[in-house]
């Protein structure tokens, strides 16, 4: 848009503008909108440590990457502070069962989406608040497969991880038991596991049962999925009793019951019980270094004030968009040239159908049933593989993506949506290969803080396209066998992965296999940005496993230094 007004608009289009108008202010206050940045009573900012105070570790981000290691470091007796950009909420009081009302859970600062398959951010993949994206993850917790971490070895494409899955397995076991994962034992696609899931699977809802029956007829093996929502009341160390899931179906947003293992009801209370300090509404803007290039402090904004926290070590766990953005903004850890590169998003194609049966897709966990028969399909013309999941959906999300895909309007739109209660879906979660054309950069356009917005380029490459075609055909077959009519497919890309990859050498990777930046000795990165490849499973459990592993490697290294 070349004219001046547009350019000005771009600069002035604030996510959170300074509101002068008294009327608008009062409206906003009533809606709990922008002005809700002020602390609510249970989160008065803790007294600031003396600015010369130095803590052992600062952790930026309290999601799946930051929370487990925060607890681990605190339990080891270190003085740790977590900085979380979003607010702290009380799920039982603040989480309405309403999609719009839970908008605050998402990272709603605008990101620019470029490429042939621009990725939707916000409610698709990015959370904010104490707990990060786990506040709104669907809590699918399949483990990565042995061969997910060695695509290059097996196919000559993609990249291998710098270690094997056996490095993660002890952490998978620990996490499944700590979080209280509900799932099938034995797990059909990985029978020789040392330990089973601690809780029985959650009950199957309409979409899951329809998919189960159709797959049985087609010779596709299925099983109830592993999910980090409690199928029974569960006692968790350091936290106490958590209540069982009531099939509220609202897992894509926030669980108001604490049955879903988000970080705010699991690792973060554990961390705080061991002395960790979590500062909410703390948006980090700067990372300071000394002449030797070591991180010395972080600067953040909290309730309109700029603050500094000195630290001996920094753990950057802000996710695959904000992590590289902070590195680029601060010109930090850039020597490999890999920061922002190889952005990946999981192919997450959905196929929807309309059924005679009354399904009510708002009941039960959204993804009750899984199949991993497509992990390495014999008829594949692509590298890697995918898994299949049944899906339920809430009406606003469903209407929105249906509108985007089908472009229905007028009476046909309303008629179609009247069939909402007869709708069921299946989707995939597929591997994605790193590619040089998919990357994140800083845009000229500024956000409300005056910082450049991130621009993310994503184009599904030939491998992703072939996988999508294979999966769409199969999912259509399943839904036809289940008796669906009016079947339609929605191509989408889920999760944010890559942009600060882990590897054996600083020539082509940002962090080493222990998560430490090659060119900054006291900077660690731990979130989905360090994934060298995307994996054929939902990422949360692996992010948490990496988080615990990074903490343990760090603690071991500190011990070696102490000796």
């Amino acid at each position, binding site marked *: 848009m070349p004219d001046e007004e547009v350019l000005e608009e771009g600069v002035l289009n604030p996510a959170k503008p300074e509101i002068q108008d008294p009327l608008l202010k009062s409206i906003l206050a009533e809606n709990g909108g922008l002005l809700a940045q002020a602390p609510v009573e249970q989160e008065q900012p803790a007294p600031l440590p003396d600015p010369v105070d130095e803590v052992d570790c600062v952790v930026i981000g309290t999601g799946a990457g930051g929370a487990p290691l925060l607890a681990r470091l605190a339990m080891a007796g270190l003085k740790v502070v977590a900085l979380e950009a979003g607010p702290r909420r009380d799920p039982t*009081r603040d989480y309405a*069962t309403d999609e719009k009302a839970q908008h605050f859970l998402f990272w709603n600062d605008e990101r*620019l989406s470029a490429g042939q398959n621009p990725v939707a951010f916000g409610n698709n993949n*990015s959370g904010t608040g104490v707990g990060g994206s786990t506040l709104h993850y669907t809590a699918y917790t399949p483990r990565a497969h042995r061969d997910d971490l060695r695509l290059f070895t097996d196919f000559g494409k993609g990249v291998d991880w710098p270690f094997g899955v056996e490095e993660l397995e002890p952490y998978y076991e620990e996490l499944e038991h700590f979080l209280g994962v509900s799932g099938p034992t034995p797990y059909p696609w990985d029978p020789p596991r040392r330990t089973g899931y601690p809780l029985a699977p959650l009950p199957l809802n309409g979409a899951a049962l329809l998919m189960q029956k159709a797959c049985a007829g087609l010779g596709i093996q299925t099983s109830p999925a592993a999910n980090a929502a409690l199928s029974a009341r569960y006692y968790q160390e350091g936290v106490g009793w958590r209540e069982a899931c009531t099939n509220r179906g609202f897992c894509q947003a926030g669980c108001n019951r604490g049955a879903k293992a988000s970080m705010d009801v699991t690792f973060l209370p554990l961390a705080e019980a061991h002395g960790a300090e979590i500062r909410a509404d703390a948006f980090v803007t700067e990372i300071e270094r000394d002449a030797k290039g070591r991180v010395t402090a972080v600067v953040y904004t909290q309730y309109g004030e700029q603050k500094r926290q000195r630290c001996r070590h920094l753990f950057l766990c802000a996710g695959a968009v904000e992590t590289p953005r902070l590195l680029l903004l601060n010109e930090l850890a850039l020597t490999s040239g890999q920061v922002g590169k190889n952005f990946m998003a999981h192919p997450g194609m959905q196929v929807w159908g309309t059924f005679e049966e009354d399904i009510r897709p708002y009941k*039960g966990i959204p993804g009750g049933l899984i199949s991993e028969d497509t992990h390495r399909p014999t008829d594949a013309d692509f590298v890697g593989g995918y898994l299949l999941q049944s899906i339920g959906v809430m009406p606003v999300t469903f209407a929105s993506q249906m509108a985007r895909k089908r472009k229905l309007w007028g009476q046909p739109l309303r008629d179609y949506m009247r069939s909402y209660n007869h709708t069921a879906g299946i989707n995939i979660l597929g591997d994605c290969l790193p590619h040089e054309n998919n990357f994140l950069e800083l845009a000229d356009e500024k956000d409300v803080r005056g910082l450049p917005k991130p621009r993310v380029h994503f184009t599904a490459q030939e491998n992703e396209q072939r996988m999508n075609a294979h999966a769409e055909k199969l999912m259509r077959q399943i839904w036809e066998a289940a008796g669906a009519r009016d079947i339609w497919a929605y191509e989408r890309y889920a999760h944010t992965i890559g942009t600060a990859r882990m590897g054996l050498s600083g020539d082509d990777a940002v962090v080493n296999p222990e998560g430490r930046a090659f060119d900054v000795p006291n900077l660690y990165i731990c979130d989905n940005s360090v994934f060298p490849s995307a994996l054929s499973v939902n990422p949360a459990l692996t992010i948490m496993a990496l988080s615990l592993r990074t903490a343990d490697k760090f603690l071991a290294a500190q011990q070696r230094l102490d000796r």
Partner: protein
Amino acid sequence: MASPHYPDGTVRALLQTDLVTEATRAALLPRLDTSEYTPQFFDEATYELLRAVAARIYPQPERPEPIELAPVVDKRLAQGDSDGWRYDAMPPDREAYRLGLGGINQAAQVLFQRPFGHLSEPQQDQVVAAVANGTAPGENWQHLPIDRFFEELLAELAEAYYSHPLAQEEIGYVGMADVPGWHRIEPNQLEAREPEEVKP
């Protein structure tokens, strides 16, 4: 199978019960407020244009008071809120709406020599169809990707419409009544509080 219909009043009745949490009730009840809205962002003419377009995308001839969608858009733009992302090919949202709504009026002028608001409903539908097909005439479409604009407009209005308790009533959605939890979750299993379809 014709589209199912559900009895009126189910969601409104549920909102008065303790089957709905206080937080949920506080989110939903204000949306039933039908008092007049004064636009904060759009000027009066543009606001009326948006209302007219929304009325064709969500025709509600059966409702004495249609669910108003324009205030949702106006409030969001006034606050500068985002949903977390934007197509890089699109200008910022405020500019996109200015250009897009202007483009709809331009198309109406070219096709029928009158502004959109002065056209008959079938004529308005032809203009909307031309935008939906990407064939609408108008200078603004040189500066705005027509397909992305229509997609964004449809999605935002869809989210506004189906967030409304009456629209949720229309499609038989009662997920907000979750206090007791859901036990009957298999196909064709309903809880007592889930409305049955009205048989024709």
